[in-house]
């Protein structure tokens, strides 16, 4: 990242594509534009890095175990489904 002395008219355009950039769903031209812009815009660079981190947190959040009592209850319900229901 260099300086923040630039025309901010492209910020919104870049901003709309940040998730697609993070997900690798943009073509090379768009990726290069975002990288160039982020290198010169502290606000967009910060937005990109905090958004990446948000996605990483979501992807790594731990699951809760199923309570044993509910698991037993679900088993009972499954065992008691009328066999005529299907399959």
């Amino acid at each position, binding site marked *: 990242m260099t300086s*923040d002395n630039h025309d*901010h008219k492209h*910020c*919104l355009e870049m*901003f*709309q594509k*940040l*998730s*697609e950039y993070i*997900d690798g*769903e943009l073509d090379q031209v768009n990726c290069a534009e975002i990288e160039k812009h982020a290198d010169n815009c*502290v*606000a*967009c*660079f*910060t*937005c990109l*890095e*905090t*958004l*990446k*981190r*948000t*996605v*990483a*947190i*979501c*992807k*790594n*959040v*731990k*699951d*809760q*175990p*199923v309570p044993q009592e*509910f*698991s037993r*209850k*679900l*088993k009972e*319900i*499954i*065992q008691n*489904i009328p*066999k005529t*229901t*299907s*399959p």
Partner: protein
Amino acid sequence: MTAEKNPNHKKINDKDFELIQAINSGQTDKFHDLVKRYEQKLYNFSLRMCRDHSDAEDMIQETFLNVFRYLKNFRYETKFKNWLYKVAASTCIKKRRKSKFAPDKELSLDEFRPGNETEVPDHVPDWALMPLDKLLNQELSSTINQEILSLPKKYRLVIVLRDIEGFSTVETAQILGLSPSNVKVRLHRARLYLRDKLKGYFENDQR
């Protein structure tokens, strides 16, 4: 009809197909094995979709009952997991329609534009730079789960399927019956919403 018998569809490798074929050929006692495979995933999906445990448990029960009811209609043209989540998402959406909740709030992109923040940041905050394993503790997990629950449901469904359950854009679109571009729009807004909440969490607590 199996994928192998249908030349119009790509062959799909799915560890669940054998079990489903056994259930559909009359071994209904094996249905519980299928439930055990997905019980934990669906329990956590339901907790993220419903605001209380009782609703989440109802949602799982209804989902598995619907799966049992409609398993004969499964066409082996998609992974079973994708079909299961389609049933679960549909159950979740129907439950909401029956409830007294107000319609989902729309999230506007303008709310999240960097230029709209009171102070334009001059550096990347520590929480976006420090190693993830040092950051992601029990409290942060609990906070992110709470903030996911505070998202309007149409955005929540998309971010949970994409970023937590790991489905692709196309798979999520198929599960929810949306276009891929609609999935991308909702996902981006949901992520920006959570980013703002995390920013507030770290700034307020001065972590």
